[in-house]
């Protein structure tokens, strides 16, 4: 039997009571005097959080109802004009469509691929650690540097990709100069760049699945595929759900690789929402309009996440 020391038990109790939001009655330590040191210790984070996150969040909401070019100190109140102009703008819907295509193009690919790799690497195979590191590497590479390299690889004359497919007799693809191919190029790079982190999350999820389920299944005569489909997939559901929510959010916010790889071209086919915000904010200096677009992005993500939480929660198994 596991014996727990009294200190550990006490700590658990404190933890439990603090989670429930109750005052810590065990020790009665939370005196008024503790607030000042607590704030002092938190002050660096608090200052950074307020200046760089909290303030911009509210300020851009304020700006979305104003006209401001950043140069002058004056902002002019124009009500919901920015939003009306945006919804009447064809380009905005075009941009919205591109973002959706990118998101729903990357996510299924990304999730299948990362689950597959995680599953293979979960088995006892040679060079597992090395492979895991290699697959994770793109995540830590600077997106700009990575996009520069990919732009070279996609180059029609000097690129590695067209050269490689040329060996198999495939005609050179016009990667970055054809609207459809450019979006495909962006999705391929997006998957390459982000699947590593999902692979790690899936690996963690796989490790949490108790071995005895598989053993029981084996006794019942299940093969690899049935084990995967009936044990791994359902038990990974919480991880899958988490990854899906996070991936949708990050795909909607994609910017850096777009800016470097395609610059929103050709013909605006890869112009995504955040690129649109950037263009209006920092090229044309329509700060109000850009803030409104930013808030639309926020609203979309908020709605999608709410829907996901509402409809997926009951369908997801959890342990214990």
């Amino acid at each position, binding site marked *: 039997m596991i014996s727990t020391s009294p200190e550990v038990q006490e700590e658990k109790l404190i933890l439990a009571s603090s989670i429930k939001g109750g005052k810590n009655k065990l020790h009665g330590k939370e005196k008024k005097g503790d607030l*000042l*040191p607590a704030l*002092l*210790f938190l002050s660096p984070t608090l200052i950074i959080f307020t200046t760089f996150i909290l303030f911009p969040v509210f300020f851009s909401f304020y700006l979305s109802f104003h006209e401001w*070019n*950043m*140069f*002058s100190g004056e902002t002019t109140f124009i009500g919901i004009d920015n939003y009306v102009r945006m919804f009447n703008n064809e380009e905005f819907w075009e941009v919205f469509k591109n973002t959706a295509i990118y998101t729903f193009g990357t996510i299924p690919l990304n999730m299948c691929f990362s689950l597959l790799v995680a599953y293979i690497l979960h088995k006892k195979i040679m060079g597992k650690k090395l492979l895991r590191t290699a697959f994770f590497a793109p995540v830590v590479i600077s997106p700009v540097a990575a996009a520069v390299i990919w732009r070279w690889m996609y*180059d*029609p*004359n*000097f690129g590695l990709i067209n050269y490689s497919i040329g060996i198999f007799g495939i*005609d*050179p693809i*016009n990667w970055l*100069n*054809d609207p459809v191919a450019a979006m495909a190029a962006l999705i391929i790079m997006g998957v390459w760049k982000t699947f590593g982190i999902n692979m790690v999350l899936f690996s963690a999820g796989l490790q949490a699945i108790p071995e005895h389920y598989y053993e029981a299944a084996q006794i019942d005569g299940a093969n690899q595929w049935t084990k995967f489909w009936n044990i791994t997939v359902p038990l990974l559901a919480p991880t899958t759900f988490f990854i899906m929510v996070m991936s949708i959010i990050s795909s909607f916010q994609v910017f850096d690789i777009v*800016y470097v790889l*395609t*610059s*929103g*071209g*050709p*013909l*605006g086919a890869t*112009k995504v929402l955040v*690129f649109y915000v950037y*263009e209006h904010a*920092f*090229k*044309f*200096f329509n700060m109000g309009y850009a803030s409104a677009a930013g808030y639309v992005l926020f609203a979309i993500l908020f709605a999608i996440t709410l829907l996901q939480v509402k409809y997926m929660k009951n369908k997801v198994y959890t342990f214990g």
Partner: protein
Amino acid sequence: MKKNIFFNLAIIFLFVSINCGGDNKKNKSDNVEIVFWHSFISSTVPALNELIQKFEKENPGYKINAQYIPSGDPLIQKLITSIQSKTAPDISWLHSDFIEDLVEADAIYKMDQFIKGKDGISEEDLNDIYPSLLQYSSWKETLYSLPMEATNLALLYNKNMFKKAGLDPNHPPQTWEELKSYAKKLTIDKNNDGTFDQVGFFVPVFPAAGPLGSWMVWQFTPFLWQAGGSLIDKEQTKVLYNSDAGVQALTLWQEMYNDQKLSTFTNLFENAFVSGSLAMAMDGPWNLPRYKELLKNIDWAFAPLPSGPAKNATVVGGEYLAIFKQSKNPDVAWKFIKWMIQPEVQAFWSMKSGYLPIRHAVSEVPEFKEYLKNHSDFRVFVDQLEFGRAEKMDYEALEITRNFAEAIERATVGKVDVKRALDESAEKSNKLLKNARE
């Protein structure tokens, strides 16, 4: 616990005092320092350093602190932030399109008060500067800056390829028709696999919304002018790039782009030229110092841009120096600008950097005359300055340029009808202009 608080406070105070200490370091020497922001390409920076050394030697007691901001877009973004936080530089090097916003922010001085001041320059000196550059230095016909250097575009071509194609390497294309027929002769599919291994003329098409969008428009405007067109009317009420001349010019680009299948060609034209898969391209003089080394295995030369159905034209551009109102020493900043536009200094700067001089008088400087004799490629650019044209847009220049870029991209990459692409873009621009003028 108490002790820890004091310890933390002590550390905080230490940090604060270190940061405050930083400010006191300035002004140790008696030199007056002028902060100068620029985004020259990196190969120009050594020449700039020499220029600054020369200024400091000739003007003891003054120091120029040149700070490099990579590329134009970040420069204007940084300028805005600095104006808001009261840390603007004394002088900044600007693209013409930025002047509108800076004037609206009341951030830069009018040049008149320096030019007509007691340390000013004469009317003759001012009129010696190329008028197109002065036009770009102004906003609504008021001078807000002065040019630091001039640039234009010429035709870079590979002489060996001309010979191989049976063309006279000393007779580069003179007209649009010649440009087209030369490009056709120089576009070759060596192994008959359906893709061209060598392309005749690089039509510079880039994503309209990207950092190279305005660069594409800049290279298109000479064609518009050569066909007799204009960007905008004199009163700045509507754009004119969708005129017949615009259609004619863009049709030329569209045909050349599609005939040479440039959509499957790299847009890194320099690499293509070096690797021998490109025969002709438009390029500026600032690359000349680099090309001596980079293109040493190629027999290359520059020629004036071919002339269009209406006339000769090249685009004249440059970068402009403005003095910021937040500067503590605007008079010293002016001293630098005044020094910079002197013919001798312009000659020195031009020979070192490859940029073009901003005024006629430079051609009288003996060293410069000598230099031109030995550098025929550079001479092409200098001679072309006479055909250099400018059209300044006073309202929403950045967004109108983007709209124009979209039309060019749609007609070439998107194969949209030229007239339609231009008209739709012009409609968007005119709406913008109307709003901006209200």
